[in-house]
């Protein structure tokens, strides 16, 4: 790459929904001057090998994230609550995609 012309371009987080997938998954990030170009760039950088059928881009600074320091408080209490998993009964056939 030459130059440093991406100075000042905002960072975008990219989410792709795969062919089989139901939800958009985070795949990475990129720089772009605006949302339209971010989608085009995401198409070129992250879907060249048929990875997806839908793209979301989100300004990175619009994402509110949990703090790594709060990890214990946030997630450890779920450790011993296996009864929250829906594994103790049989799913009817009509229920897809659990």
């Amino acid at each position, binding site marked *: 790459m030459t130059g440093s012309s*991406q100075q000042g371009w905002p960072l975008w987080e990219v989410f792709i929904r795969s062919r089989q997938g139901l939800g958009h998954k985070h795949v990475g990030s990129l720089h772009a*001057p605006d949302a339209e170009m971010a989608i*085009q*760039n995401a198409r*070129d950088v992250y879907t060249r090998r048929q990875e997806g059928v839908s793209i979301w881009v989100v300004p990175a600074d619009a994402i509110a994230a949990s703090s790594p320091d709060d990890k214990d408080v946030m997630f450890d209490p779920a450790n011993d609550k296996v009864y929250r998993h829906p594994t103790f009964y049989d799913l009817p056939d009509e229920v897809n995609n659990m």
Partner: protein
Amino acid sequence: MTEGQHVQAILRLGDDAMVLGQRLSAWCGHGPILEEDIALSNIALDLIGQARNLYTLAGAREGKGRSEDDLAFFRTDREFLNHLLVEQPNGHFGDTVVRQMLYSAFALERFAFLSGQLVDAELAGIAAKAVKELQYHWEHAAQWVVRLGDGTAESHEKVQQSLHDLWSCTGELFDVDEVDAACQNAGMLPDLVAIRTAWDLRVNACLAQATLARPEDGWMKEGGKQGVHSEHLSYMLAEMQVLPRTYPNATW
């Protein structure tokens, strides 16, 4: 339409794609940013893919056993039948995106027709695949022209100059020679007057959004599709062809 004209028409299509694909390939590793580097390389690969299909078809229609590689690597500049526009040097990034916008608007309209014509079904199949690629090339290039034209004072001035420099290569796109006329009458190639109208609409809309002035239609260069090229093409071909010409049948 004679068989020779049929082959020549397909070769012209293939040569446009080959030469522009080779030009864009030179951006690989030199793009202004990583994302655009990949975008230009993707477009280059789309075009080279189109060229391969068209060369293979031209070789088959010609019936002399010439392969896609024979047509790409063992013809001289006088035997290449691409438009002058696509052989113009990459220049700076603005030059490249303006060239891409002007060509993609033309190619998109042309291949849309080709995908629907019934004279050569294989050509229609190749064109149908190409149209999806060209639609993206057009959108990507047009968006860049808008951003540079309606960007800073410096970027505006630069792409206005790019447009001015390349404009004299646009007249040739709509020139009708014997080959074009014969293939149009046969229904294989589109009426270039209609293509011009559609091209004008696209280009004018893009330039208006980009706040760029459309140059006057002055003197236009011509000769590319008859094999008479600018000095730029033979240098490009020398680089493109050196390996297969030095080591025929080399493989890796």
